[in-house]
């Protein structure tokens, strides 16, 4: 299987022949184009910084669900992981902050490097890894016994961190999650009183409060209405200032709208594998692999 690896510069490897040879195959290409052009000459601020998966395999018991995935997530970028159900993209996401190992019988091989250090190295404090690599889940899951404010700061409490000014942090996180104006007058209301979309942005604010370097999002909008989805996507775009975002999505429009790079996963009954990764524009206009093309044009999946 032909696996392209992204280089740290964030530029995908494409040859000029491809651009000429193939017409744009997907209407999503134009959406994606706006996105990646603005990031076209992006240079990571800290060379060597970022998240990199090297030859990652994953198992549930004896079931091999993911094979040999290598992907680089440069800082300041959003990477979308797409593919049909059961292709291992969510499992891959969960190997990136060691949430994978919660499932009994879970196993993995390969390396995940965060700023050059393997997060699976023996002696690693898993809780510290999860502080650096935060996660937002499919279903909004604020802590219902806590107020909105307590929810945002819950990570500080859970990880027993010290913060000098909690009010500032609270406002900053809610601003970044695009929720501040809606909740600033009712920070002591319960998290459950918010709408689904607001709850999800609250979860994003909560994840940001512990200052992660990477934010993993597992289908964050699949339980939300289109309006809320757009708000979250705006939020994601703004987050790239400070965090690397990796988002799993079933919604190809979403991948096209928010991401700089897109990885396509596929399973042919065996373990899921990474078929192709390139800039989002490439994936939606001139994918190299015909299976990617079939998927993004909606011919299967």
């Amino acid at each position: 299987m032909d696996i392209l690896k992204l280089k740290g510069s964030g530029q995908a490897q494409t040859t000029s022949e491809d651009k000429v040879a193939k017409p744009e195959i997907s209407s999503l290409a134009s959406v994606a184009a706006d996105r990646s052009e603005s990031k076209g000459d992006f240079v990571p601020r800290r060379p060597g910084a970022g998240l990199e998966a090297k030859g990652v395999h994953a198992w549930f018991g004896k079931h091999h669900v993911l094979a040999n995935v290598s992907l680089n997530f440069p800082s300041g970028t959003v990477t979308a992981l797409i593919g049909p159900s059961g292709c291992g993209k969510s499992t891959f996401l969960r190997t990136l902050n060691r949430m994978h190992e919660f499932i009994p019988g879970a196993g993995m091989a390969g390396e995940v490097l965060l700023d050059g250090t393997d997060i699976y190295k023996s002696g690693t404090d898993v809780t510290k890894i999860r502080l650096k690599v935060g996660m937002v889940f499919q279903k909004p899951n604020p802590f219902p016994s806590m107020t909105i404010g307590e929810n945002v700061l819950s990570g500080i409490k859970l990880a027993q961190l010290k913060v000098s000014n909690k009010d500032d942090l609270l406002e900053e996180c809610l601003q970044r999650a695009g929720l501040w104006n809606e909740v600033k007058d009712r920070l002591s209301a319960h998290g459950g009183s918010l709408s689904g979309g607001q709850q999800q942005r609250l979860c994003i604010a909560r994840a940001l409060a512990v200052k992660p370097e990477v934010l993993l999002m597992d289908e964050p909008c699949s339980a939300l209405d289109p309006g809320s989805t757009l708000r979250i996507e705006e939020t994601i775009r703004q987050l790239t200032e400070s965090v690397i975002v990796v988002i799993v999505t079933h919604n190809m429009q979403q991948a096209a709208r928010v991401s700089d790079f897109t990885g396509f996963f596929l399973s042919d009954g065996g373990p899921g594998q990474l078929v192709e990764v390139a800039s989002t524009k490439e994936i939606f206009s001139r994918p190299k692999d015909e299976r990617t093309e079939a998927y993004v044009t909606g011919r299967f999946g």
Partner: protein
Amino acid sequence: MPDLSALPETLPERRELTTVPRFSDKVFRGVVTAGGFVALIVLGLIAVFLATRSFDVFRMFKLGFVTGFNWDSGDPDNGITPILGIGSMLIGTLVVSFVGLFFALPIAVGTALYLTYYAPYWLKKPMTILVDLMAAIPSVIYGLWGFFILMPHAIYWAKLINKYLGWFPTFSVPLPIFERSPFIAGLVLSVMIIPIITAVSREVFSQVPLDRIQAAYALGATKWSMIKTVVLPFGSSGIAGGAMLGLGRAMGETVAVYLVLNLYFLPNFHVLFSAGGSVASMIVTKFGEAGSLELKGLMAAGLVLFIVTLVVNYLSNLIVRRASRTGR
């Protein structure tokens, strides 16, 4: 586009919506309805039985039956009028039950947390079965164990507590007699109610939504901080409910308490001192030798215990519902 504010002048007549159940459905409905009502009827009949049998006693002693501390069946031949009051026994029941709950609650919640979150996979099942089995041991066995095995040790502990915490009124004793005290009865009760509190707590702990647990872990939580922020708030209502169930069981417990508690018809708050009360045990103690009036008094005591237990259960329901509004 239709104007949403404009409704037709005349609304159509509402149709009757009926579902005709099948015969088999009717039969099943009859069976389960009967089952449900049997429980209600039995409960009601017990209440009626106790109320009619104890009517005379309540007419004679009025509220004094509940608040009075004396129990004297009287001697009509010698002109001694009977006086029946279960106040001290009621207080004693509460004291013993709360001592039991005090020891049982932390142990049971700890056991439930261990079984749900810490125990290795192979140990979970056998240990759960063993804890559940504790509830199946007949209470007379607990009573005998409490009397012969636990009491010698418990007296030593009671003396220690008295020596170092005796300045606190509850832990002082009027006389240095430590046998068959509310403290020892409470210890025996705590062992007896641990299984029920553990079972209820374990049940709610296993229902904690996985996404909340994962949310906590994804924020860098340790296991203990996850339990503190997610599991305990979610489970608080269940723990309270289990505790109340345990309290109800402790208050109704008869034989075990009868064996390890010295019944004494004066209110005693010195938990380490050999004098206590328990309505249920009192009924057993007096039943064999009771005359006709005293027997009615015991029925009345039963009625009071019945009502108190119902109130405790009702309160536990209230707590559970209030906790579940804020906790979930």
